[in-house]
């Protein structure tokens, strides 16, 4: 594997491509448990990554049930039968709900997807709970080094497509441009869900598709000028009373509107 450049967003003290020193230590001591970080959790068994979850990515249950691989009843049956024993994955295969190869492909996809977000740069310290196992159980463990290498590669990959991360987390808008070239079917289905409110994560959940795959397609759509991020996020008023959602660009400044805005701001 060729050397990977340090993440330019990483703090100056963290120039080496080490995503999480704690994770490397846990791998070295062959730890078992859950590494909880700001944006997701990695589950380790014997120092290998056996599962990952992130609020930014659809869980394996969503991935499997959205496409119809598994019906909701099948999923709940597996959770009821094998959840307590932490062998849901094994049960899904043994009971004939999901073919073994399909489960491995889907699970690996979900694992790397969640790990990418879980290992995102953060200022919040990570916590590790020893002994915790995920209910999905053993499917196909992955070495920590492979997960770290892939996560770094994915960051670079996104930036090579389009170096602006604005679309990764903000609500998304379709631009007024018509496409210059035919939009591939997968990107078109994504584009249909871009409505000024949904974020990349929302779209991933709705389509039952890996969130990183959505980011890749979004960067391509952004590069083609078809999608843009909504700059001012409509946050709950109570959380940040100073932020008021505004349209990003007005072709023609409306003086009356600006006056009303000023008055409203002063009244706060």
């Amino acid at each position, binding site marked *: *594997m*060729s050397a990977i450049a340090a993440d330019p967003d990483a703090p100056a003290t963290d120039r080496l491509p080490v995503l999480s020193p704690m994770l490397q230590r846990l791998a070295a001591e062959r730890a078992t448990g859950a590494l909880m970080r700001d944006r997701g959790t990695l589950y380790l068994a014997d120092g290998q990554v056996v599962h990952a979850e992130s609020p930014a990515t659809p869980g394996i249950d969503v*991935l*499997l049930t*959205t*496409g*119809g*691989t598994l019906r909701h009843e099948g999923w709940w049956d597996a959770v009821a039968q094998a959840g307590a024993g932490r062998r849901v994955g094994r049960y899904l*295969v043994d009971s*004939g709900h999901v*073919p*073994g*190869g*399909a489960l*491995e*492909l*889907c699970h*690996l*996809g979900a694992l*790397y997807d969640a790990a990418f977000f879980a290992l995102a740069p953060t200022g919040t310290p990570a916590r590790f709970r020893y002994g915790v196992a995920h209910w999905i159980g053993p499917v*196909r463990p992955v070495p920590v080094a492979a997960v770290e*290498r*892939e996560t770094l*590669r*994915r960051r670079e*990959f996104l930036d090579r497509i389009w170096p602006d991360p604005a679309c990764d987390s903000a609500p998304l808008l379709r631009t007024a441009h018509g496409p210059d070239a*035919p939009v*591939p*079917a*997968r990107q*078109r289905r994504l584009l249909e869900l871009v409505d000024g409110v949904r974020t990349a994560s929302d779209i991933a959940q709705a*389509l*039952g*598709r*890996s969130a*990183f*795959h959505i980011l*890749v*397609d979004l960067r391509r759509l952004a590069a083609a000028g078809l999608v843009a991020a909504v700059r001012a996020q409509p946050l709950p008023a109570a959380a940040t009373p100073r932020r008021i959602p505004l349209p990003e660009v007005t072709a023609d400044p409306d003086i009356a509107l600006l006056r009303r805005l000023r008055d409203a701001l002063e009244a706060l």
Partner: protein
Amino acid sequence: MPGIDECLLEVMRLPGARGASVVDWTSGLALGTIGDSPNGDHEATAAETAEVARMTAEQPAFARLGAEGERTAEPPSTPVEDVIVTTHDGYHMLRFVETAFDSSVFLHLWMDRSAGNLALARRRLGELAERLVLA
């Protein structure tokens, strides 16, 4: 009930097989590998072949279109079944794997040109791609 490793072992039983992998073409991630890779680095090969697979899968020229150029009701992830690249001493075969859940996976087989049997490999790889995700 085969998994990724069993599938790759089967692929390697084809005459002339030098290496094989299961790759996600959206991200370029190698989900499983076996044998050799042309440049000695399965991960780099996966990222490179994924680009070829993606461009083929999304190429409008190969797309199957319904009336008025609209997509058909429930299309597979790509209308393309496989891609075959012939080099001076080998064959590369990329076979798309159709899954019921959303994915973008293909099987990559690298074969020796003199020992490999292209027609046999193509048929077998198609069967294995189906068996990988069927019970």
